[in-house]
């Protein structure tokens, strides 16, 4: 059983299922991404996971605690950053963090340390009503981390942030995960997700279409890396040699670039084959199958 266990989750609104028999086990210590087009059921799934709504059917447990019967104990282990996070305009940053620290039995001083860490140290005595969108988002991340919960649920964590802010969040996610925190992330920005996640789940119209590592999903869809090798004087002979290599599925000459579609294991053998055929390699790039390709394939209508 994983640290988050979702079994047969169903949520219907007026008879229409927003989430239809979704089951997921999130392993302790992994970075798990939930993906899907708008309306796929991501927010509904996350809300069900946190007890914000009552499922029509199914059972959810967090860290072994059943969400329905032991909700308080279950939620004690989770830090949540909702998509459009909002706070109380009349409270200062410091007072806000103190409030949430108390609710999680954490030290109030940790609240101040976290504000420093997300770059709000100089603004902690200003009212949150005066914060910019980016500042509110950073406060959101600080609040999620208070009390050092073992699980973080982040819904669109980089929304409202500039590129530097997004980069900082990704670094933070990596660092927290290295320290053992399980991260459940939902995002539209596939490039960011691809960079940090171990496994992904893809929802479409309330159904779970796929759940696996990006490598496994690419293999399932027969998506392969493409090597683009720039040679000084390409020849048909070189292309033929490369074609012979085990694991190569396609070779194409485009100008002075040889494009090779192959398995990951074949890559070094291709270089050898090319050089043996007299090829003078000038440049070498690999295009790995992207999460975007996987996503688009699984969410076709």
């Amino acid at each position, binding site marked *: 059983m994983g640290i988050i266990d979702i079994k047969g989750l169903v949520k219907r609104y007026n008879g229409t299922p927003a989430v239809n028999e979704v089951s997921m086990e999130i392993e302790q210590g992994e970075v798990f991404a939930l993906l899907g087009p708008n309306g796929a059921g991501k927010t509904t799934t996350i*809300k069900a996971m946190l007890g914000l709504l009552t499922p029509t059917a199914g059972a959810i447990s967090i860290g072994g605690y059943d969400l329905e019967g032991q909700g*308080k104990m279950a939620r004690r282990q989770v830090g949540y950053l909702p998509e459009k996070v*909002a706070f109380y305009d*009349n409270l200062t940053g410091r007072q806000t963090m103190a409030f949430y620290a108390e*609710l999680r039995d954490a030290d109030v001083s940790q609240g101040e340390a976290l504000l420093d860490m997300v770059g709000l140290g100089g603004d902690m005595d200003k009212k949150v009503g005066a914060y910019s969108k980016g500042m509110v988002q950073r406060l959101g991340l600080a609040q999620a981390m208070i009390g050092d919960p073992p699980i973080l649920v982040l819904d669109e964590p980089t929304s409202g942030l500039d590129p530097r802010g997004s980069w900082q969040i990704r670094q933070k996610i990596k660092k927290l995960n290295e320290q053992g925190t399980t991260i459940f992330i939902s995002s539209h920005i596939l490039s960011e997700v691809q960079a940090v996640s171990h496994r992904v789940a893809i929802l479409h119209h309330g159904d779970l279409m796929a759940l696996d590592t990006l490598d496994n999903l690419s293999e399932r869809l027969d998506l392969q890396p493409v090597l683009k090798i720039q040679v000084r004087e390409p020849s048909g002979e070189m292309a033929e040699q490369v074609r012979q290599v085990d694991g190569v599925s396609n070779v194409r000459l485009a100008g002075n670039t040889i494009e090779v579609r192959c398995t990951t294991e074949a890559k070094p053998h291709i270089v050898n084959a090319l050089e043996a055929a007299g090829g003078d390699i000038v440049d070498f790039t690999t295009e790995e199958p992207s999460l975007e390709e996987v996503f688009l394939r699984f969410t076709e209508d």
Partner: protein
Amino acid sequence: MDGRAVYSIAKKEFLDNWRNKWIIAMAAIFLVLTLVISYAGASLGGGSGWQDVGGTIAGMMTIVTFLIPIIGLMLGYSAIVGEKESGSLQLLLSYPVHRYEILLGKFFGLSSVLAFASLIGFGVSGVVIGLNVSGMQWGQYGVFIGASFLIGFAYIALSLCFSAVLQKRSTALGVSVLLWFLFAVIWDTILLVALVATENIDLSPGAEFVAPTWYHVAALANPSTAYQTLVAVNIGPVSANIAGDLPSFYSTPVTLIVLLAWTIVPLLAAYIVFRKKDI
């Protein structure tokens, strides 16, 4: 139940609402009105003993009957549904806290705001009365303040219930306004109409007003009437200002039960609906 969670939420509710411009304005209006009444009554009116302060207390009671329910409704109507619309409720519910702890914490926090806001008016007016009146009975004044708190808490419970049950802030505000209108303005009129329609009552001036029991029960069910009756039967001089012979069951225990019922029942209803609500 985790007392600390309830306390944290109450504390946050207090801090949040204490800086609300509308609440500050209402507290100021309450202070000014009660001050004017107490000064006019205690220092300018004839007589200087506590027995003569009845009119002043009656005047203050009228202000409370009008203003305190409004402050209570304003404090409570957006306490849950406002947070739901802004998004902070979703975050709060993800924390290790029970939904009933949230309701209780908000109720206590809002009640503290109302108590402090009205205490400013009661306090200053109390000083004015005390300076001008001999034989001031502070115990009686305390009973008056306590009763005024109770009516406020009842209206907070009612608006908090609407806030927890309804879907939109505008709806909660509308229902709260309607409720205030019902109790403060038209309740007695509705009862009189019902009385005239069903019984043979002589309402001409000079005739003795004798109404059946159901009328008096229905009248007392209005929390504002219960409040005024509670003050009237306890503060000696004031009772002369309430017209007619009061039925015997118009007493401290009954009026207290009415006020407490109007506080506990809405909170219970709020809990029953809120605990299973999808947010």
